[in-house]
């Protein structure tokens, strides 16, 4: 596989995070200068009409970004009815609240790795989560939990009916995990 294809695949995968010259150089075992030259060349490949995204360099980071002409289509996509009317962000947040309640926003964000205020608001507006108390300590952060509507909506009698929390997201792999998965 040629190097530009590898770089293309990696840049695709990391998306908005992008890659620094050094990261590309390390992974491909090239020197920085060669990478820079290669990237200049690659930029041209994506600049044409046929490509939906382009290669940009922002603050020393290379990344693919969709072309501005895509904006109206993206808007239409958001409005096009997908499978569920809860977004992945909302569903993810809801799942974390369901399993880990009572939980603060900071803890949710810690697990998700992204800001979750909007998702929480969305869930609250659907009456799926609510404030259930305040955390001990200085911040007295709001603790979130699920509502009766949540149980009703998902056809659950109680929270005990939820399948076990995925081990990949647990801090420590449980013993069962080791049993289920063999490396």
């Amino acid at each position, binding site marked *: 596989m040629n190097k530009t294809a590898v770089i293309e695949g990696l840049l695709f995968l990391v998306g908005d995070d992008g890659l620094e010259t050094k990261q590309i150089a390390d992974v491909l075992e090239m020197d920085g200068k060669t990478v820079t030259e290669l990237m200049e060349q690659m930029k041209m490949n994506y600049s044409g009409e046929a490509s939906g995204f382009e290669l940009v360099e922002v603050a020393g980071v290379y990344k693919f970004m969709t072309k501005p002409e895509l904006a109206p289509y993206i808007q239409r996509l958001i409005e096009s009815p997908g499978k569920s009317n809860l977004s992945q*962000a909302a569903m993810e947040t809801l799942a974390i609240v*369901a399993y880990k309640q009572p939980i603060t926003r900071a803890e949710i964000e810690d697990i998700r790795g992204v800001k979750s205020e909007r998702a929480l608001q969305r869930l609250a507006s659907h009456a799926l989560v609510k404030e259930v108390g305040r955390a001990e300590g200085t911040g007295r952060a709001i603790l979130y939990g699920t509502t009766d509507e949540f149980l009703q909506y998902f056809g659950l009698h109680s929270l005990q009916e939820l399948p076990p929390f995925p081990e990949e*997201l647990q801090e420590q792999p449980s013993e069962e995990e080791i049993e289920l998965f063999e490396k």
Partner: protein
Amino acid sequence: MEYNVKLDAFEGPLDLLLHLVNRLEIDIYEISVLQITDQYMAFIHAMQELQLDVAGEYLLMAATLLEMKSKMLLPTEEEEYIEDDYEEFEGDPREELIRRLVEYRKYKLVSEQLKQREAKWQLVYAKPPVPLGEPEVKPLSEDISVYDMVSALQKLARRKQLEVPKTTKIERQEISIKDRMNEVMAVLDQAYGKKTFYEFYDGSDREQTVTTFLAVLELMKKGMISCRQEGNFADIMIYKTEGKRRE
């Protein structure tokens, strides 16, 4: 005779029986109850001699086999049973066992094929989606289930797996304790002079954790902060000491 006494190597009595059938190199449809029962029992005995727990399922199968064997040995009411001639008999006791073994073997076969697919598809990765923004608030649809939640968590797990370690991680190692001490004091200033110990950690980075811990110790030694804990396992609060100044 040698026995593989690792029961762990088998998924259950049917798996063990299939193993024995393979080892005896016999056609599954031509199973000799006497032979297979002896082999199976020898295996179970070996297990027990090693004082290993033999699961109930294995013992149940042992009982079934023994019952079958005894039926084979006793002449039936009509005539003597000839083992290899089972088709002439109605209600061959082996029938059920053979049916189960054949059925189970099929699933073992397809699970092998699935394993190969699994291996292949573990080499390809999809990119985490870009949050595109929430659509209008609409009433929730009826066909969302618990599964959708678990599925969302799986997607989250995949996304987290693809997190690329930042090169800044390396830079962080270069943060001196002195710099971190200044940062801690700055954070305390912003938090009106107190904050929990826990809040100084951003989690992931061990280097950062160690540096922060050492910085806090150093600040305590210098009397610039004090720490208090209400009870065992309670959050440790860090207070900026009044009157002392940062240099």
